[in-house]
């Protein structure tokens, strides 16, 4: 169950990590890419979201002894993946309903 509202940046960060574990800069680039350049996160926004997601247990850090501090990698936990899937289902239902309603209006 989602314990805080999923904003678009948080959703995109989760979506980015759903594919593979990534480090901070890679998440920034991927979010920009999957949103078609529409969403460009600042580092403040990104790390605010990452901290909340870490606190909630939706993502976790991959501890690597050899990795420098600026290349710490984050990955989605099973809880995070489950919540992301729930959000996707909710959005799918919403778009389906939106499609039906707009089609009915046009007819």
């Amino acid at each position, binding site marked *: *169950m*989602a*314990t*805080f*509202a999923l*904003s678009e940046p948080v959703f995109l960060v989760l979506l980015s990590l759903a594919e593979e574990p990534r480090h*901070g*800069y890679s998440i*920034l680039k991927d979010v920009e890419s999957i949103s078609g350049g529409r969403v*460009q*996160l*600042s*580092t*403040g*926004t*990104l*790390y*605010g979201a*990452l*901290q*909340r997601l870490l606190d909630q247990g939706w993502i976790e850090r991959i501890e690597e002894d050899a990795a420098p*501090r*600026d290349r*710490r990698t984050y990955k989605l936990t099973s809880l995070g993946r489950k919540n992301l899937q729930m959000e996707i289902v909710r959005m799918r239902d919403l778009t389906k309903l939106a499609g039906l309603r707009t089609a009915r209006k046009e007819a």
Partner: protein
Amino acid sequence: MRSLYQRLLRLYPAVYRQEFGEEMQCVFLQAQAERSIAPLMKRAKFCARELMGLFSGAVQAQLRLLFGVDDWLRLRRFNMRPEFRFPRSTVFLMCVILAAVVLAIHKAKSVVVINEGLRSETVTIWDPLFWLCPLGAVLAVVGAVWGILFALRRTGLHRLDRAQTWPEQK
């Protein structure tokens, strides 16, 4: 820009800086290096976005540390649990109603003074107390509402929705 970024980073709580500070700075430098050959307008937008993001992030981190409240700046709704939300419009309406009641009481008192004294001159109502009373009342109401919501949250009411009292269907 780098030194300004470092200075703004000091606005974050020390715990946060220790955990993410160095990492944030490195990511920022990578992003800045990538835009070094971009047009001036794009670079200016990038700088403005970074500074704004850093500033709002610092404020949110400080408030989270002080009050333990997540998404403090996102005041669209007071989220208690997904099924129970306290709309901001209700708080606003409550404040307006209370201010109206205080105003009505104050005006009524002014009328009593005129009638009892049988004076013909107009009694001024633009004294400082007239403005301080509603303002104080509004602040008191906002504080009381926040207190109730905080108390409800402390009771763990919002965790009830996670409790499952029936077996999962397969």
